[in-house]
């Protein structure tokens, strides 16, 4: 299994039709806000985060990645009653990290997608909790067991979701 690229020339960069690029994040946010009301156990998924990671590693452009993460995060923030920017900061960093990593790693196979998502999920949660605690001044309960399990669940979901989203990407 090959996880790393030897040179930037080997990296394939993809793009998305503008409709897909707009609709995929919108649907992810809609899913996150709507589905847990009907099926509460699905609130463990962070679909907007998975989409941020997917768009980042696929497009492999750090600036686009961080801006995508920023917009998705801010919209997510606007649906909560917390100050705007908590999810925004966390997803900006994740978007930047995912697209930077996409240049160096082969993220086309399931194993690397699983690992990348797992790592970025934990990074996202750490950033979210840090910002919420440090900047907003709100204490949140960090439960290691829950976060590790949620990371696993999201990583498994990412493998399936990325396979579906692969259909929308076009070679640049």
């Amino acid at each position, binding site marked *: 299994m090959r996880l790393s690229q030897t040179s930037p020339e080997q990296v394939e960069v993809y793009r998305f039709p503008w409709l897909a690029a707009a609709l995929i994040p*919108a649907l992810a*946010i*809609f899913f*996150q*806000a*709507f589905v*847990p*009301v009907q099926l*509460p156990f699905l*609130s*463990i998924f962070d679909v*907007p985060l998975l989409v941020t990671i997917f768009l980042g590693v696929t497009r492999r452009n*750090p*600036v686009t990645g*961080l*801006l995508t993460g*920023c917009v998705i995060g*801010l*919209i*997510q923030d*606007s*649906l*909560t*009653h*917390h*100050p*705007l*920017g*908590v*999810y*925004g*900061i966390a997803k*900006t*960093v994740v978007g*930047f990290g995912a697209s*930077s990593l996409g240049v160096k790693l082969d993220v086309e196979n399931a194993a690397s997608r699983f690992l990348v998502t797992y790592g970025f999920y934990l990074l996202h949660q750490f950033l*979210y909790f840090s*910002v*919420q605690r440090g*900047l*907003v*001044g*709100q*204490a*949140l*309960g960090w*439960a290691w067991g829950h976060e590790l399990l949620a990371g696993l669940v999201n990583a498994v979901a990412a493998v399936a979701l990325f396979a579906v989203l692969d259909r929308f990407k076009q070679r640049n």
Partner: protein
Amino acid sequence: MENLLTRHRNLSVLAAVLFVQVFGLAVQVKRSNDPQQTRLIRVWAVATITPFEQAIVHTQGAVYGVWHNYLYLRGVRQENRDLKAQVEQLKLEQVRLSQDASQARRLQALLGFKEQSILQTMPAQVVGSSGSEQSRSLFLDKGSEDGLKKNMAVITSEGVVGKILQIYPHTAQVLLINDQTSGLGAIVERLRLQGIVRGSPNGETMLEKVMADEEVQPGDKVITTGGDGIFPKGLPVGSIVKVSSSDLFLKIRLHPAADLSRLEEVLVITKLQEVAPASGEVAGSQRAVDILAARLPGVPEKAAAKDGDVSNAASRDEPKIETSTPAAILEAKPGTGAKATTAPVPRPIHPDPAKPQRNETTGSPHSSADPLEKPAQSAKPAPVLKPIAEQPAHDRMQ
């Protein structure tokens, strides 16, 4: 410098975007005291997402309605028979309860007891959530154009759900009681201990500010105090699941009465009514005890003199007065030996000054003075004590 920025373009953009967000966050945290502020991005996001949520929920409801009301009618006859039997049972219970309620109303009028009652509610459907495990809030399918306002209480038939936090033209955001930033005045029903209900960081519903030496037990019911001006008094909040001691206060975990994770339809309390004693019931400057004295049957002076002490007479000849109910306490005429102050007084109107948190009147719409003391001190001697059950109906307080 310019060269450096160009060379590290990606990092520069990242730093700039992060700086803007951190700065914006700091401004918001600093201005968090302004409750009227609603960011435009919130309005846009909510206005974009909630119509789709409403459309799906209403379509779901319509399909469910057609299926269950017209197609799937298996077992409906049996259910109808069961419900009819239940209605009969409830009618009987209602008669008893309405008698109790009218008695309670008469007592409230006498005591100058003010409380809020629910006058009008509006049903609303839950259409969405915040999408975050750390922000426990919901969106309803009704908004300011339907008459909803900020800080209105949201309940279900089981109990309290939360309050309206943000209002938009066609939707409203509800902050649940298990959110960390919520706060609700509540009392333990059995002990009349006052505390504050709020969410823990993990989303559990907690009762805070109850002193560590109190004997709170799992299973105790917790209800609203009405003191926060949002929720009327007496609504079920939940029951105590776990009690553990931590320093000065108890750590009390509640099981919310309303299932907060599976809310579909809720009621928004749109109008509260302040129930004050009717003017006809406590007439003019007359004291309650005077009215009572006039209505209670008199005893000839002779008989009273002969007995010497009314209290002795009462203890020997008259049936014992059940003093555990407020009615009996009031019916027991002050100054006749049956002392209202020594009777087991209902806690809501008789706070214990030694323990501040037992004082339910703090922050509640009730008068802080003990309403029972005044009649007890100012009462004129009245001849006879009679248990309420023995008096003819027209002799009782109206």
